[in-house]
């Protein structure tokens, strides 16, 4: 699975971190970090993260 976050849209709300902590995290300055090629077993939680992003900045590209 390929995950792309539009960092121009991202405003560091962190909702994705709650939904998919294995894929998304925040650094010490509160900026988003993410795994761009997570295991397919994590698809459900990544989809949840994409749904919950207030800026709709997360795209899943199979």
């Amino acid at each position: 699975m390929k995950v792309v976050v539009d960092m121009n849209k991202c405003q560091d709300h962190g909702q994705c971190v709650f939904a998919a902590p294995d894929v998304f995290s925040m650094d010490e300055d509160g900026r988003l970090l993410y795994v761009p090629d997570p295991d397919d077993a994590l698809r459900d939680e990544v989809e949840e993260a994409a749904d919950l992003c207030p800026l709709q900045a997360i795209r899943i590209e199979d």
Partner: protein
Amino acid sequence: MGAGIVVAGASMGGLRAAEQLRAAGWTGRITVVGDEPHMPYNRPPLSKEVLAGRAPFASLAFTPKASAADVEWRLGARIVASRLAERNVSLDDGSVLPYDGLVVATGMRPRRLGCPGPLTGRHTVRTIDDAQGLRDELTRPGARVVVVGAGFIGCEVAATAVALGVAEVTVVDPLPLPMVGPLGELLGRALLKRHEERGVRFALGTGVAGFAGEDRVTGVVLSDGTVLEADVVVESVGSVANTEWLDGNGLDLSDGVLTDGLLRVGGRPEVVAVGDVARFPNARYDGVPRRVEHWSIPADTAKHAARTLVGTEQAPFAPLPTFWSDQHEFRLQSFGAPALGKDDVRILSGDPEGDVLVGYHTGGRLVGVVALGGHAAATGAARYRAQLLKQPALTA
């Protein structure tokens, strides 16, 4: 194939319901009916980025999941009546849609002030067309703006207007502090100070008696007779549920549509409600049915309601409410139900002049946290989220 599932409402709740029906295993027909001409789009930017001219419509549109590619969209169509006993709804073009399952997702519309005066120059912010119309007027040189209602949307619009360079922005509210209903006095005072420091004026503790002007509004008449001169008025005084089309079915429509803990409507297993029109009991709290106008609710309710509709067994709905609001350069971030704990408000860290984290308690127990400020405050609130999630139900 049968009549399938009709989703009444084509905003975020309607879209998520369609997607979650597919995720829950529904392979039959899905028809989504919505009165706006647009595909579902994200509304929070309307009072901020769209008003500021930084977000074109294309950037707001949701991207439907591939699983929902075969959903039939009937846009620009309004459902005007329903017969739940016969399982069908009527559209404004006279056609009748039968259904096997119905999702109520018709949402809210802005409440309008009924006091006398001209209508032209008065705005609300609910749709993309509303926001673009308001932006056109805000950006006229010398515009004077009065915002009626000091809730989240009113305060966001006021902050955006100041940032756009509008010289006079005044917020009117009968309550003594902005956002005091949902947040209480401590943060209400902190927010008032921050807005005033950035140039927003307030007329608090006063209602609106009427609007001055002949063909278009020239001022807002306050309860005490004072007139605030205005070229543009924004009405942000709450919302009204779009449930008239459900009249005549014996439902409780006193505030949105009442559901049970599985989001079923009127005790019918084939009718569910999602989004801010649904008045549901939250098993996490006191079981009192409430409507919740947070952005997270359409997705949460859609998931639960879709499973109910396809017959998946599940526990009663118990979402952890969460909302945010961006005003000027600061953010409010809330987890839980602060409004239930407004009588016992404690500062958990920081201070109201800078980044602050506030806890709301009922019976000594934490029921909500709200952060005000920058990243540090929001990160602090996130730490309490896990604690709020783990707590047993309030009634237990």
